[in-house]
């Protein structure tokens, strides 16, 4: 069986492609899993996260009642350590000295306390987290080969390519789409691509990438790629690489140079002038 569903969620366009075995309702169930994460983690409409943020912004602690939000917070705390603290969904330009360090998360009590006002924005992590849950659902439903995409920057695959072997992907240069930055083969893995330049980076809904160390916006032209067994981990790593300084980047890349990539582009690089591709005759 080969089928596909496409829908809007997590602020982008999601595609789920399934090949071969699996229950008939596998893709529908995977879609529901992604939408459930979106409902819990979004900050663009009322959600468990916005309710939490209201308390945190007011300087108050809060109980974490939503199971998905709780699981996301547990995952984030683990990822903080593996990314040198550079992945920080609480980094906020409004509160330069805030960030995750202002948060005390008590897993046992399912409660957050804070030392100063903060707000959470899960950003790309939410997409990876959602794809992980969708992949888990597909596996439960007997799917052995699937490709899931949340926008162009977050991909997860279940099993091997339907024709065998890994799933071959080519990561395009964000400024010169005809060029390839790196080619990868994935099997039961996820890839996350983060970039400060390229199409869509100036979209009004897109939040700037904040450097957690000083709450400044990362403006240097850079693109990062991270592969991991879990999408949430790949997202955290690509984000950390994007905000890392030279030493931090070396330490993160040394963790797995075949699965983590950082591309710095010349200063002044920007969205390519598309008018150059127009060849109208006068």
């Amino acid at each position, binding site marked *: 069986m*080969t089928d596909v569903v496409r829908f809007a969620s997590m602020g982008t*366009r999601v595609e789920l492609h399934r090949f071969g075995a699996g229950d008939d309702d596998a893709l529908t169930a995977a879609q529901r899993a992604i939408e459930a994460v979106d409902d819990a983690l979004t900050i663009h409409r009322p959600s468990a996260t916005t309710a939490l943020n209201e308390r945190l912004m007011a300087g108050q602690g809060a109980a974490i009642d939503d199971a998905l939000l709780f699981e996301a917070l547990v995952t984030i705390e683990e990822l903080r350590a593996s990314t040198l603290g550079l992945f920080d969904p609480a980094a906020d330009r409004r509160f330069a000295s805030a960030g995750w360090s202002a948060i005390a998360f008590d897993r046992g009590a399912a409660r957050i306390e804070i030392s100063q006002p903060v707000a959470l924005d899960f950003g790309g992590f939410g997409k990876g987290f959602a794809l992980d849950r969708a992949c888990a659902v597909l596996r439960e439903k007997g799917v052995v080969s699937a490709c899931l995409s949340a926008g162009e920057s977050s991909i997860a695959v279940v099993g091997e390519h339907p024709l065998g072997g890994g799933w071959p992907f080519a990561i395009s240069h964000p400024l010169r789409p005809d060029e390839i930055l790196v080619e990868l083969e994935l099997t039961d893995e996820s890839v996350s691509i983060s970039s400060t330049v390229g199409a869509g980076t100036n979209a009004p809904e897109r939040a700037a990438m904040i450097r957690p160390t000083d709450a400044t916006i990362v403006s240097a032209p850079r693109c990062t790629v991270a592969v991991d067994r879990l999408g949430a981990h790949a997202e955290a790593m690509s984000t950390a690489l994007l905000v890392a300084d030279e030493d931090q980047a070396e330490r993160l890349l040394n963790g797995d140079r075949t699965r983590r990539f950082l591309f710095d582009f010349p200063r002044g690089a920007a969205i390519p002038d598309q008018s150059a591709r127009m*060849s*109208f005759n006068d």
Partner: protein
Amino acid sequence: MTDNDFDLSRRSFIDRVLMATAGAGMAAAAPWASTAALAAPVAKGDRVRLGVIGTGDRGRGLIQNIAKTRNCTVAAICDNFELHLAKGRALVDASTRAFTDHRAMLDAGGLDAVVIATPLDLHKQQSFDAFDAGLHVWCEKAMARTIDDCSAMVKRSQDSGKVLQIGHQRMFKPTYLNAVRRAKEGEIGSLTQIRASWHRQSSWRRPVPAGATDRQINWRLYRDSSAGLMTELATHQIQVSNLFFDAVPTRVMGSGSICFWKDGREVYDHVALIYEYAGGRKLIYTSLLNNARYGCEEQIQGSKGTIEPELGRIYKELPPKELALLRMQADVASGKKRTVPIGGATWFAELPVTTPGDSLGWGEYDETMLQFEGFGEAVRTGKPLPGLLSQAYYASVASLLGEQAMDSGQVMAWPTSLVAI
């Protein structure tokens, strides 16, 4: 500007019109333009003698353009408001006769045609009087205050055998003609929608000088004499829409309001309309008087590109991005395993394209002069410029039909009782 400079720029302008209208397609689409551009110069004593009715701002602008032509001359002027008449006198030879009543001007003779630049509600009677006096008529747009009056003017012109020409300067503007040519050549694909707007930051209310009445000066603001934005501005752009679509609308719906300038005016200061054309094509039109951000523009939208003639720009649509994952599906189905290109920032809803596009490549020139050279040629030969009157007639009808749609809240179908041209 010296005479030589003027001749040079004039030749350049005419050359551009001829270039823009070259080819069989354009000869059919805008035949009036090349005919006007090819009008022969005439010795001063043999020029077409025009009597200008109305020497307000627009009338005086017309007098100045007539002076640039090589086949027309202003032989008389007329205005019932002394201040305007005095300003008109300052633009013509001292020997040019001046009148305060247009009938007196017609009775005095010595004219081949009249130029009407008066409030809209006067156009029909003044053109009737001129036709009855055996004269040809050049009349400012819009044609008349009602659709019936527009039709009556066309009919009277036909019955009298005299030329009736309406002032729509965009029909002689090289930028527009070139844009139409390129659209007809298929550069922007199939035209399906035109968005047009004329937005101003202005009350449109003029100070009333001593000796004049508000309704005399601000006639555009009152229903008796004007349909406001529809007849003063929209009529230009509806004509452009008709020209690009090569059709007239099938029906129109709209909403109008006095939304901002609540100063006693009777005409809308905000209008929004949709004109439908055969095949589902649309003109989406807005005009308002308290926000000039988007100004005056027509966006001619095709499947392969967009033309913005007021900005003189043409844009090409980028080819749609290949859906990599969709291709992967097809590959797997055919037993192929190919690398899937991905990457770039997360997809977001399409943003406006801000790249400038290419220039249509034509400079500015006052095409009103060319209109009059064309009119002069039409008067001299007794043959109207081909295709021109129907363009103006349909544009005026469409603008007035839009007013009816807004007033009634009903969808108005294109009238079936129009005069055949």
